[in-house]
């Protein structure tokens, strides 16, 4: 087999393996948990690229795509971010800082929409990561001003949400959720959803 054919086989095998190890969307939604006990296995650059590429496909009002993603893996920067973020637990291998890029004259409405999009992007990141075997935790408790300083954020770019990431050895037990009959209704509020 010549070198090109060999390379092609390797690429096909890698794609097939990736397809095999990624999971069904509903399964990922159901099984994802908040993970704070990470192993020290680094996250491969290709996995991180897949995760970011997935986040890019989240819904965006008017396709404005005001999200910006900063991936922090360098130990010194990561430690600084952890130190100014009381909501970060454990030692993540990477932190994705999701920022909102505001327009020059943003209204409260713009802000609200951008915040929703950031939340959706975070969920997409968490699900994409989980389907690759990587655990995550969303964090909102950090001192914005300190993060802006550490990451040299320009004016108008605001850190909104973190997703901490890392491989995990085991998943926490699922928390209890309210039954559908209590939170979902048919046609009118109060008419319980029947499964």
């Amino acid at each position, binding site marked *: 087999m010549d070198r090109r054919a060999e390379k092609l086989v390797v690429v096909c095998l890698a794609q097939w393996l990736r397809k095999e190890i990624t999971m069904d969307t509903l399964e990922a939604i159901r099984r994802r948990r908040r993970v704070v006990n990470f192993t020290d296995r680094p996250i491969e650059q290709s996995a991180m690229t897949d995760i970011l590429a997935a986040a890019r496909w989240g819904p965006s009002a008017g396709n404005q795509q005001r999200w910006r993603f900063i991936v922090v893996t360098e130990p010194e920067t990561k430690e600084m971010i952890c*130190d*100014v*973020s*009381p909501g970060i637990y454990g030692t993540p291998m990477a932190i994705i800082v999701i920022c909102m890029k505001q327009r020059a004259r943003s209204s409260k409405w713009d802000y609200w929409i951008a915040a929703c999009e950031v939340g959706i992007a975070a969920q997409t990141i968490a699900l994409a990561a989980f389907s690759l075997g990587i655990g995550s935790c969303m964090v909102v*408790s950090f*001192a914005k001003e*300190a993060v802006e300083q550490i990451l040299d954020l320009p004016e108008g770019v605001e850190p909104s949400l973190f997703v901490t990431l890392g491989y995990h050895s085991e998943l926490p037990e699922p928390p209890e959720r309210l039954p559908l009959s209590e939170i979902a209704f048919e046609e009118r509020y109060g008419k319980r959803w029947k499964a």
Partner: protein
Amino acid sequence: MNPKVLTEDQAFKLLAFLVTSARLCVVEPENYGTFRLIDAASRLLGFLLENEEARDRDFYAHLQREIEDNKLLLLSDEEAYTQFVGDAAREIARRMKTKSAAQPIDV
């Protein structure tokens, strides 16, 4: 003579945690303040336990375990959480009295 049980780095980490928590307390729900404080106490205990010279290690380890096991009660059972922080305060006071009885008073 008291041993030095915190390095400057550890003290700085705690400083960062306290100042950034103060920032967050302005916007977070009111009862998060107590959570940040008890979490800071747990971090301080963690640093003390990292230092071989800390003298009261069993007490620190016990208190840290108590905090880690109970701090999230705040989210599910506020009454139990209040009971837990009250008990923790009582334990600290008891320990203070034991320590003060064991040490000669400086005059």
